């Protein structure tokens, strides 16, 4: 059966013109965000905060409140599950997927989704030859697609002020989704928070593409078949064709980290960029071609992945060459000897093997990141006083609110805290109300920005 599926996919890929690497926003990225959400604590958190349908709670951003956002959402196809209806309403899961898709709008923002952990660099426009440079200039003059010269490293972009969907935007909207007075306002803020979360997850997820973490910008200039402007990464296209949005695999596990940056890169090599950079080749960072008779091992562009001590030159002399595999058996490249020249390539079947391993891992990192964004929890106890406590928090402000039976929330107290106060807040219990809520906005013990929330029904 696997063989049949492989052949079917091969037939689809055969219709696809030439090469790719990273994830398409409305399909693969939206699918990754959905899979991460389904495996994360998001559903429960939404229910706790009064969004009773959880991931399937309809949330509304009135179009008049956010015309530019609505204009951007109209760029997406509804079949990808992230377009609100005419009143600006769609379910929470849809808003998260929308954020994952909008992170690439405008396209120039996509230039900030690269990070090479060896150099610390982000996107740098690859030279395309004289003819193509002129062509690009003309396209630019025509107001059509232009390739940005450079981009911020992805790990910096998620907190950059220029990024409309940065960490601060998420935290601000998330806090307001708890503290805003009316259900309508909270719905709008939660939708906005989910857009920002989806976009941050997108930036991390992109680092699952080898070309984006190995300084291989040229891999993003492969013709994709939709005309002269349609250049991109073949692996990205292959992922979109093979998995679409709906077929993106579930996370292999949940990655936990204590700092946002560590999901991207860390000193211990545990970030997604670190993992992918050392584990896979990209089209233009393959081992260099070499002459077999010289008996000199092919020179590596980067130390890892390493080549085995002996390549199977006899098998490489066959017409189809042979496959270089990693310790788990995943194809890293095909190598082939022709006229005494040993060369390496990444063909479609090899790319599909890699995707089958990489995508669940990317989903695992995105799930962990989403849980990290939602990690802050407060506990509330009530007797004659409301007592709010929380663990692992640093300096910030704490608000305690009560919700009446119309859904209107009113602040009972707001105070600064240095995090070592225990409890964080204590106020007299109100005589009326249906639900108590608390929200902390500040930093955790590690100095990482955090919003921590808590809620409980109020019995009288």
């Amino acid at each position, binding site marked *: 059966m696997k063989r049949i599926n492989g052949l079917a996919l091969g037939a689809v890929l055969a219709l696809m013109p030439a090469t790719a690497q990273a994830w398409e926003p409305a399909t693969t990225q939206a699918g990754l965000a959905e899979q991460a959400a389904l495996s994360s604590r998001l559903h429960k958190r939404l229910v706790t905060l009064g969004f009773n349908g959880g991931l399937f709670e309809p949330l509304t951003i009135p179009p008049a409140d956010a015309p530019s956002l609505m204009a951007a959402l109209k*760029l997406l196809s509804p079949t990808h599950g992230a377009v609100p209806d005419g009143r600006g309403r769609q379910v929470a899961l849809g808003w998260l997927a929308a954020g994952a898709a909008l992170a690439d709008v405008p396209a120039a923002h996509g230039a900030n989704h690269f990070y090479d952990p060896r150099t610390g660099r982000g996107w740098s426009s690859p030279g395309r030859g004289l003819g193509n440079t002129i062509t690009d200039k003309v396209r630019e003059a025509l107001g059509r697609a232009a390739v940005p010269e450079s981009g911020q490293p992805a790990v910096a972009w998620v907190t950059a002020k220029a990024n409309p969907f940065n960490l601060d935007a998420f935290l601000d909207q998330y806090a307001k989704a708890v503290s805003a007075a009316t259900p309508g306002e909270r719905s709008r803020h939660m939708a906005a928070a989910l857009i920002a979360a989806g976009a941050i997850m997108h930036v991390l997820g992109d680092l699952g593409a080898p070309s984006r973490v190995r300084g291989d910008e040229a891999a993003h200039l492969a013709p994709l078949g939709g005309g002269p402007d349609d250049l991109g990464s073949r692996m990205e296209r292959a992922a979109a064709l093979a998995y679409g949005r709906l077929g993106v695999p579930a996370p292999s596990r949940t990655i936990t980290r204590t700092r946002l940056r560590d999901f991207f890169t860390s000193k211990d090599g545990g970030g997604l960029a670190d993992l992918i950079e050392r584990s896979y080749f990209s089209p233009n960072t393959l081992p260099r071609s070499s002459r077999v008779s010289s008996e000199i091992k092919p020179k590596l562009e980067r130390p890892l992945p390493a080549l085995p001590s002996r390549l199977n030159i006899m098998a490489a002399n066959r017409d189809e060459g042979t496959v270089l595999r990693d310790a788990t058996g995943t194809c890293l490249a095909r190598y*082939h000897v022709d006229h005494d020249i040993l060369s390496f390539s990444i063909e479609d079947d090899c790319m599909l093997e890699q995707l089958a391993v990489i995508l669940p891992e990317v989903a695992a990192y995105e799930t962990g990141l989403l849980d990290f964004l939602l990690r802050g929890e407060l506990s509330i106890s009530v007797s004659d006083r409301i007592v709010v406590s929380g663990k692992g928090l640093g300096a910030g402000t704490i608000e305690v609110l009560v919700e009446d039976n119309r859904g209107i929330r009113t602040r009972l107290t707001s105070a600064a805290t240095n995090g070592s106060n225990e409890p964080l807040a204590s106020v007299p219990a109100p005589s009326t109300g249906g639900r108590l809520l608390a929200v902390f906005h500040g930093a955790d013990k590690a100095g990482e920005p955090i919003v921590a929330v808590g809620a409980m029904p109020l019995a009288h």
Partner: protein
Amino acid sequence: MTLTPHLSVSTTSGLGNGLGPVCNGRRTLLRPARSVANHPAYRLAILVVLAAGCAASANRTAPFRVRPDAADPGSLQGPFDGRVVDVTTHAPIAGALVYGAWTFERGTALLEPAGSKEFVASTDAAGYYKVPTLGGVPSGARVTEFTLMIYKRGYIAYRSDRRFSDLGLRMDFAQHANQVLLERWRTELSHSRHLRFVGSGTAVALLTQWELADASAELDGKRPQGDDVRPGRGEGTYIVAAQLLTETDIKNRTKYDGGFETGPLQDEPDTANYSSQHFKALARPETWDIAIRMWKLDAGKAQERYEELLTQLPGIAEKDEVGSRSFVATEGEIRGVGFLDAPRGIVVLITCGISQCSSIDDATSLSKTVYDRVKTLLPMSLGGK
């Protein structure tokens, strides 16, 4: 020097898709010579060349065939046509939502969404659909996808790109003469998966919002409890209401010369114990409609169901003309006939508008036809119960 990797994929079919001049850029990785590129005369010359030859938008190659029996790829631009039928009965499904969407993209190297165009319609009385050719493409954008989605309540939705069962690639979609086989919804299926499957947008959201509560409950770990009530999972032979009464049966009796939309009633989905079929008269008032509801239960519960109908329906008169027991009922412009087939545990209720069934005899005659079919489909020797 880094060698450009060899890739095994054909590069002939997609470079411009045969729609216009191919202006694919070279892949030589050289640094730009800015002084030449910025020279006004050079820029003007290239601009003229590009505007003439390469400015038009293009399509990617469609990942589907032009016809089910053809090897050639279809066109993303359309038009598209096909037919929607019930996978079990092969009866045409009328009135199903036909939702087509073209996806546009723009950008070079770093790609971005560039909009979409929707087409919303429904299948005709014979289950056929047509989606017209895409009119235009936004300036500077290209068509990268066409997705067709078919939705009818009571059925699993259909997508042209993915299967619901395993979310794998659908390989049998064709631009023309496409056949859509809709499976009836089963209670063990996941609404959260189904909502993801159907996508979003106004038309789809309106029709699927009833699934939201069930989807949310699933994520809370709350699944329907109790007996396995999936269609086909009960004891004995699996039958559905659509097998018991056909358009031909109705026309033979009532001499109706119009068409019907058919499909399950919208009141509740089919289960192992319940099935319905609605014959909605095309371009006629509801008084031309007919509906059949069938319960398949154990003998005791069938008796109870029948008794409930006797107490619930207005204008009841017991006649015992069909099956073990039967009744006729009339309310306003609707006539009804119900019967119990006690040995098989079958209860049937037929409702018929007064224009279609000019007398109660028409409804009774149709009930007898249904009863005959029940006996054929569930012969007692096969353990109809």
